[in-house]
C-alpha cells in the first residue's frame, strides 16, 4: 500500500485515503468542437501507460479533498515527488534521461 505525500496536508498518508485520478498533464482541449474525432478520441481514451516514470493525479478523498500530482515509478512504485496542480514536475522523463 503506497504511502503518499499530500502537498496540501503536508503529510504522508496511506493510499486508502486517496483515489487515483488518472494521468496528469492532459489539458482539456480549448475548442473541442474543432477537433477531429481522432484527436478528441486521443484526448479521451489514450494514455501513456509507461514502464517507469509516470505522472499521475491523485485525490485526497478522505482528507483535504484536494487534487494533486505525483511522479511515480510504475515498476518500483517509488514516488519521486508530489506537487500541486498547475506546478511542473521537477522529475521528468527528459531529466531522467539527462541524468
Amino acid at each position, binding site marked *: 500500500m503506497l504511502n503518499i505525500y499530500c502537498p496540501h496536508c503536508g503529510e504522508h498518508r496511506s493510499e486508502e485515503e486517496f483515489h487515483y485520478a488518472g494521468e496528469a498533464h492532459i489539458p482539456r482541449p480549448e475548442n473541442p468542437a474543432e477537433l477531429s*474525432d481522432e484527436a478528441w478520441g486521443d484526448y479521451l481514451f489514450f494514455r501513456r501507460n509507461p514502464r517507469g516514470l509516470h505522472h499521475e493525479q491523485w485525490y485526497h478523498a478522505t482528507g483535504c479533498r*484536494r487534487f494533486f500530482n505525483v511522479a511515480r515509478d510504475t515498476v518500483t512504485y517509488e514516488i519521486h515527488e508530489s506537487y500541486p496542480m*498547475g506546478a511542473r514536475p521537477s522529475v521528468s522523463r527528459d531529466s531522467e534521461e539527462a541524468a
Partner: protein
Amino acid sequence: MTQRNRLPERGRVDRSRTLRFQFNGRTYTGHPGDTVASALLANGVRLVGRSFKYGRPRGVIAAGPEEPNAILQVGTDPATTTPNLRATQTELYDGLVCSSTNGWPSTERDLTSVVGKVGGRMMPPGFYYKTFMWPSSLWMTYEKGIRKAAGLGQSPSQPDPAEYDHMNHHVDVLVVGAGPAGLSAARTAARAGARVMIADEQPELGGHLLASRATISGTPAAKWVRRQTDALAREPEVTVLRRTTAVGYHDHNFVVLSERRTDHLGPDAGGVRERLHRVRAGQVVIATGAHERPLVFGNNDRPGVMTASAVGTYINRYGVVPGERLVLMTTNDHAYHTALDWHNAGREVVAVVDTRAEAGGDLPTEARACGIRVLTGHGVIEAAGGRSVTGARVAPLSADGESLAGTTHELPCDVIATSGGWSPVVHLTCHTGDKPVWSEEVLGFVPGETRQARVCAGGVNGTYALEAVIHEGVDAGKRAATAWGFEATEMRDLAVSVAEPSQDPSMKLFLVPHHKPVTRAPKQFVDFQTDVTAAAIEVAVREGYESIEHVKRYTVMGFGTDQGKLGNVNGVALTARARGKTIPETGTTVFRPAYTPVTFGALAGMERGGLLDPARFTPMHLWHVRQGAAFEDVGQWKRPWYYPRHGESMQQAVNRECLAVRQRVGMLDASTLGKIDIQGSDAREFLNRVYTNAWMKLQPGRCRYGLMLKEDGMVFDDGVTACVDDEHFIMTTTTGNAGPVLEWLERWHQTEWPELDVCFTSITDQWATVTVTGPESRNVVAKLCDDIDFSREAFPFMAWREGTVAGALARVFRISFTGELTYEINVPADYGMHLWEAVYAAGEPYGITPYGTETMHVLRAEKGFIIVGQDTDGSVTPEDLGMHWALKREKPFSFLGQRSLDRSDSRRRDREQFVGIRPLNGEAVLPEGAQAVENPSNPVPKRTIGHVTSSYYSAALGHSIALGLIERGHDRQRERLHFMTSDGRLEEAELCSTVFYDPDGARQNV
C-alpha cells in the same frame, strides 16, 4: 502414557506441570513450553499424516514454520476449529484436541496408501497443469476426491464467535525476527531514540538461541536473550510482539503482522483471538534467519527423517530426543552440533555420514573424540523402513557428489537427520518484487537489491557465525536509526565475542545419488507437502518446461500451504541440473504474501456483520421502523422500501401506496438525495460547464432539471438544481452518486478551471427532505405553513420558496418525480422527524400514505423518468434516452461530454435507445435484465437486441409496464419483441412511448 523420549532435564519446558491432549483420538501428555510437535515426539509418535498424492506415511521434519508434514486440525468446535496449523508452531495447552488433516480415511490405515501406486499413476507430474487445460467439467469430477484426499482440513462450519481486530501503527523502525540479529538491531535502534517495534512468530524472543548451547562473551545464550528482552522492556518506545508473524511486506514499508493472542490458551480464553497489525515503518530490519535445507535421497520422507537443526532444537529446547539411534548426514560442519547434542543426551549416534571427502574442523574432531563414528565421503542414498525409519543405506560418493563410488551397506537407526546447508528466509524481501540473488559463498539465495527502506541482518544474509550475526544486527539497528534521522550511540554491551569452532567449507549437494537413475530410484522427495520428487522435476524438464515458474506449475512444487519453504532451493538446483544450467541462470520462483497462512478472521477483523460497512439512517428512520417498513439498501443508506400493512404482500402494499399517491396524497422520506451547496461568483458558469443544459437565465426562486455527462458523452448523473441567488445554488444528485458527483465537481474545478470562483460543500446530512405528492398535496402543506403562498400562480411548477413549515425553517421545492402535484420540503436535519410527523398528522384527513422506494420507482416509471444507474449503465447518451430537450449545444463553453455526442460512435444508427415496453400479457412483469430477441424461432445462440432496465406492475394502469434499451428503439414504436424470462419462457411485448401515464403532464400542472 509416558513421554519415553523426554529427557529428565534440559530445555525450556516446565516439567512441574503436565498437560493432557488428544491427537487422532488418543490421549498424550506434555508440558507447558511444548509445541504439539515436541509433545508428540516426546511420546514417541512418529506418524502425523499422510502425503497429499501418494498417501505415504509422514512424520515431523522440522521445528518451525517450514514444517511441511505435521499439519493439524486443532479444536473440535465447529465454530472455532482451525485447519492447517503446523504442529511445530502450535503451543500445547491442557485439553487440546487435534488430528491429522492429511490422511483419508485414517492416518494409520490410509486408503490412498493401499492404492498408492494407482494414485501416483492417476496423478503423474503435470496432473494439475493438464487437468486445468482440459474442459473444466472434468476437473469437477476429480476435485471431490482430491480435496478429500489432499488433507486441506475442515473449515469451520459455524460463525466464529471470537473477536478479531486490526491495529494501525507508525513506527520508526520495525524489526522482523527476534533472534540474535533482531534483538541487537532493536536494542541499538531503540537506544538511538527510535520508536521500535519488534515482532517474532515464537512465544519467546530469542530465535534459534532458545535451542543453542553457545555462550556469548561468557554468558549462556538463553541468559543473554533474557538480558536483551529485559533491556527492551525498559525502553519506553519499544513494542514487543510475540506470537506475531510478519506475513506480508508491501510497498513503502507497509508490513502486515498477524498476532495470535489466545490460541495458546485454549478455546475458552476469550478476548481478541487474533490481531492484524498494519505497520507503516520508516525503516524495516529483516532478521528472519535461515531454514535448514534437508538433503534429498531415496525414501527421504520416512517418518524419522528430519533436519539436523530440528533434532537439535527438540533436544535442547524441549528436552526431547526423537529416537534411540541417530544417523546424521551432512554437507557441513554445523550439523555436527546435533550429533553432539544427541550423544550428550545419552543416546546412540550410529554414525555421522559426511558427504565431504574430509572433515577436519573443530566439531568433527570433537565428535570423533566422543567416540562418534564419522564416515566421510559417504552419503545416505536411501532410508529403510515403512512407517518409521529402520536404517540408513549408506554408500561412498564420488568427490563431486554426482555418483556413487562403491557398494552400499545399511546402518540400523530410527532417526536420520540431514543438513544440506541453510536457506536464508528471504521471503519477505521478495514480496515487493525484489529478486533474491544466488550466492555461491552462502550456497543459498540472499536478499537482492531493493527500493524499500530496509536493512537485512544475520542469517537472512547468509551470515551464520553468532558473533558476526550480533554485530550485523547492531549495525542494522544503527543504519536504520540514522537513516531515519536518529543519532546512534555505541552499544558497549553488544560488542560481544563468541568463540567459533573452526570450520571446513561446506559441500554443494542437492541430491544424493542412487545406484538407479532418478526416475527409477526410490522416491526422492523435494517438496514433501505436494509430493514432488526429483524424478518429477526431471520429467518436467524433459517435457520441455524450462522456466522455473513453469516447472513449478507443472510439478506443483511450492504450491502447498508451506510455500515449499524446505524444498524450493533443492527444486531450483535440480531444475538447473536437469537443464544443464547454473542456479543463477535458472533463478527462483516468486514468494508472495502470506509468509504463513492467515485466517480469514484476522483479515476481516472487526469489519464483519454490522461493521462491514457503515449504515446511514435518515432522521426519520425510527418512525419507519415503528411502522414496520421493509428496508432497502441504497448505497450505505437504509431506505424504507414499502410499508406493509397487516397481511399484505409486497405487491399489495406497493399497489396500495401507488394508488394513494395517484388518487389522494403520499409522503416519501427523500432525505438521502445528494445535496451540494455551490457558491461563488462563477457558480453559474460552472453549472453551465458541467450540465448539458443552460443555466444563465435561471432566476432566484426557480429550479431546473440537469443532466450531467462524463467527458465521453455518457450520462453520469441527473438532478434538480435550485438558484438561491446569482452566486448561490443548491444541487441535488442521485442518492448513490452524492460522493462521486462532489469529487467530479472538485476535479474539474481543481484540475482544469481553478480560475473559476466557486466552492462546493456537501449538505446531504444537514437537510431532511419530505416529499408530499398527489392531488391533495397542496392542501396538506398549506395546513403547515403560513408564510408561503402555495397557489398555482404564486408558486408554479419548477419553483422553490423559503418559509416556515411546521415551525421549522424550510426550503420547499415544487418539482415532481411522480407526475403528480408535488412539494419537496427540506428542513434542517434535526427537524426531520418533527416535520415528518407534522406532515403525517396534517395529511391524515386526506388519507396520506407513506410510501417507499419501490412505489417511488413504479410512479416514476409510469412517467418514463430515468433512474441513473438502473436505466443507464455508463454507455448511454442523452440522445439514446430521447432527452434531446436537455441538451443546449449553443452554450459558449463546450459542456462536459458535448463533443463526444458527435463522435461517430455516438451517431451510430444502431445504438440501443430508451423505450417503453408493454407486455401483451398485462399480468406478466418482465424480469429486469431480460434480453430482447426479434424472432424467437431463430437458432441458438439468438442475437439479442437489448434488454429490460426497469419493470413493474402498474396499479394505476392495471397492467405491467417496463422500460428498456433496445437497438434502434426510437424507430420501433409498436413493434413486438420477445423477452426471455427467468424460467426460460419468452414473453411477447410491444414497444411504446416511455410515458405510460398522463402523457401531457396535466396532473402536475394544477
